[in-house]
């Protein structure tokens, strides 16, 4: 085994090599993970990792498109599936990236908070001997003794008295030592930075809370019907792992009417584009609560405590009556059909389980504005009801072979046979509202009574969303503070010169600070003015710095690396 292998066993052969041990190894790993370099790498990895989810269809968004993709790409599809490209945001590798980033974030915030806590309570460091070596500096000659000048400088930096309205560069924390002053300002920069990173942790926790305790249910509700918020009422229900499914908020929603408007004036690509969806509902927050009329719109959900009802879809539900040979009604109801394209060519199935001796199934299309397309047969030219028609094929046999569950919008025809017309071709019904047709062989009749609309409701409960919003807003506030506030150190030294006093000033900034020079200039001017003299020799630090760009760069690098050595 090589000598630099890190293990817990003592190794006598190599005494000069420091032994890391398990603790050391863990500490080393922790350092690596929480280093800025790793955080940067993970950030970029997160960005790259998120991209595939926008290119390939995702199961959690549109499972149908995933199935379609897999059917069309028989060789690459299964491999992409195995690698999680259709469930990117719940795949282990994506989780690994963000969990490592989360740990890195915690590993950054905790020690930095400790350092910042100490820094906030500590005094600024003593002033260096040679202020002219600092990246920004200048000096001025004033009347009075050095002590008087120092007192003025202290007042100016404290922002008290006459200088309270000037206070160049913000509020400073001071340290006096002999004939020198040290001042530091901009602690809020690091506070903002820590707030930003802590708030990001809060957002991640809020997302986790929403995932664990939140749920989502979808329900297609035909106008005139109502539903109560229980699991059995949902077409699909997707609860988080820790959801109490018995304790759902007991509200009911009835949709009385659904108004839908489509673009009719335009003749271009915008024709038929949806313009407005409005559902008129009656709701009850609980069985004992009064009924309330409420309007539900696309950007205006209904709220029941923490649960919200959204209007996310709509479509048509033809009302169909099926009678048997004797004229008895076997079925009379509105069946929702699912829109397939922008013109609402909709597909659906009508399952007549009570038909005998064989069950009947009708499968086909509802067309709000019907025309016959040469290539694709019955089609729709507009999403509104301009020429509504039903085009159906009729099947008989066993609707639910072996009782397997199946989609309500399609017919499982493996145990069914399609009815034929007198010529022996498959029977096709084309019905308009109010029309009836007899099925061959005395099987009865099918009547298309009329059309109703349905509202696609999505009901969501996410107890983490307020926390997520709070965290996000706090993160933004912290971010602005950390980017806009400057951390600065200002040092002042005074020395007597032939009965007068020379005030020297020097400044250091953490990171980029193009404004430091002018702030020092302002401070110096204010000190000179308050010392009740005219500045006799002001060496503007600004001109100084612009003339010696390269040397300034050098010293400012030194200055910033000194303050940045802890991390980032």
């Amino acid at each position: 085994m090589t000598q630099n292998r890190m293990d817990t066993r003592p190794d006598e052969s190599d005494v000069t090599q420091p032994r890391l041990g398990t603790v050391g190894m863990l500490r080393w790993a922790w350092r690596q993970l929480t280093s800025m370099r790793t955080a940067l790498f993970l950030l970029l990895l997160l960005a790259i990792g998120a991209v595939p989810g926008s290119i390939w269809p995702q199961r959690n968004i549109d499972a149908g498109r995933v199935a379609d993709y897999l059917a069309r790409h028989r060789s690459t599809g299964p491999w992409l599936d195995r690698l999680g490209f259709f469930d990117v945001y719940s795949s282990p590798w994506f989780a690994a990236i963000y969990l490592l980033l989360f740990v890195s974030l915690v590993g950054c915030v905790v020690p930095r908070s400790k350092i910042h806590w100490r820094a906030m309570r500590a005094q600024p460091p003593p002033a260096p001997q040679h202020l002219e070596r600092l990246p920004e500096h200048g000096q001025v000659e004033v009347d009075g003794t050095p002590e008087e000048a120092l007192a003025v400088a202290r007042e100016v930096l404290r922002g008290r008295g006459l200088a309270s309205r000037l206070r160049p560069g913000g509020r400073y924390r001071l340290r006096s030592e002999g004939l020198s002053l040290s001042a530091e300002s901009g602690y809020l920069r690091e506070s903002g930075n820590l707030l930003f990173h802590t708030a990001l942790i809060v957002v991640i926790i809020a997302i986790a809370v929403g995932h664990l305790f939140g749920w989502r249910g979808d329900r297609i509700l035909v106008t005139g019907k109502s539903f109560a918020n229980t699991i059995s009422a949902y077409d699909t229900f997707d609860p988080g792992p820790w959801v109490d499914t018995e304790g759902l908020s007991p509200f009911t929603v009835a949709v009385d009417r659904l108004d839908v408007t489509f673009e009719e004036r335009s003749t271009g690509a915008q024709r038929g584009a949806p313009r407005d969806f409005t559902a008129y509902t009656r709701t009850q927050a609980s069985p004992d609560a009064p009924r309330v009329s409420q309007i539900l719109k696309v950007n205006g959900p209904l709220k029941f405590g923490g649960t919200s009802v959204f209007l996310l879809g709509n479509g048509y539900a033809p009302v169909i009556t099926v009678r048997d040979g004797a004229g008895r009604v076997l079925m009379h109801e509105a069946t929702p059909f699912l829109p397939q394209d922008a013109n609402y060519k909709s597909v659906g199935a009508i399952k007549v389980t009570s038909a005998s001796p064989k069950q009947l199934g009708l499968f086909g299309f509802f067309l709000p504005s019907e025309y016959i397309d040469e290539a694709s047969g019955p089609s729709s030219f507009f999403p509104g009801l301009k020429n509504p028609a039903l085009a159906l094929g009729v099947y008989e046999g066993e609707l639910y072979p072996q009782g397997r569950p199946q989609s309500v919008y399609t017919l499982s025809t493996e145990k069914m046979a399609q009815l034929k017309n007198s010529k022996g071709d498959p029977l096709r019904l084309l019905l308009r509202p109010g029309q009836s047709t007899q099925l061959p062989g005395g099987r009865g009749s099918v009547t298309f009574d009329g059309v109703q609309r349905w509202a696609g409701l999505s009901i969501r409960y996410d107890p983490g969303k307020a926390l997520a919003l709070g965290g996000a807003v706090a993160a933004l506030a912290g971010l602005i503070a950390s980017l806009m506030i400057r951390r600065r150190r200002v040092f002042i030294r005074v020395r007597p010169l032939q009965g007068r006093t020379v005030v020297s000033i020097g400044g250091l900034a953490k990171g980029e600070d193009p404004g430091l020079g002018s702030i020092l200039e302002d401070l110096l001017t204010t000190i000179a003015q308050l010392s009740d003299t005219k500045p006799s020799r002001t060496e503007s630090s600004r001109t100084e710095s612009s003339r010696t760009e390269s040397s300034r760069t050098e010293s400012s690098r030194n200055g910033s690396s000194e303050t940045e050595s802890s991390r980032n």
Partner: protein
Amino acid sequence: MTNETLALYANLAVYSAMAVFTVAMIAFASDLAGAAPASLASASGAQKAAALVGAGPSATGPAPLVPGEDPAPRRRKAAGIAMVLTGLGGLLLIAAAAMRGLSVHRAPLGNMFEFALVGSMFVVLVFIAISLRRDVRWLGLFVVGPVLLTLGLAITVFYTDASELLPSLKSVWLVIHVTVATFSVALFTIAFSVVILHLVKTWLEVQDPLSMSRLKTVVNAALPPSRSLDRTAYGIHAVAFPLWTFTLIAGAIWAEQAWGHYWNWDPKEVWTFVIWVIYAAYLHARATTGWSARSANYLAIVGFGAILVNYMVVNVFFVGQHSYSGM
């Protein structure tokens, strides 16, 4: 509800703005060409461009060969003309956006054409705002150029007839979210121009000024020192990034209202997040000792590439809930 005449006038204003920006671009280019010492630039084609807009050669007599140490500040008549024209173009874009909005009785933020129009307007306005505080005439060409390109694409490729909005877009958040998004993209665009110039300048700065080609000398003389370029780029990014963060948050709030959840991993959301992460990495790289300004700036370039993907590829080719490009 749409007023066809107003929409037509809006398009005419866009065409006029493009004409004005073209002249402004030539004037900016001739100003930059004049930055080189006269002895070197005397025969360059750029000076002919300067003559076109009435600005003659600025320096006379022998000038020092070392760029950037021109003792007398040169007269920059062409740059002055260009700035005025840029302002005029900005006014025309404001008029175009206003008429487009009035023609459909809503904020002009509903499709690709309108984003491009409002985005260009913001780029120009931000540039003018910066120019009021600092001398950024050297940047003019690299702001007006991209604006002209964007407007050209907008009026031809991205053009969408004025029309009403889809129901999911009818919300105050359209104005809040999309305005801020467009504004921060405008800032990122200007920052991107500065970053590219920074790369060029750092590349030129390490070369021997005496053996440079004529073009290199002109460019080198026209641009501020690389350190100042880098500082400018960082400053603009530092404003754009919080605005982009706000865009993300406002978008999440709106998504919660319109689609039921604040985060749906919609392609547009994914790319907005990817952009946010890349620029976050840029800011971190800037704060990390051991990363040069140059390598951090490569991240900024990648970030802007992601913005372009987000605008042009995601809107048109990816299937998602943000499919409102109108194309």
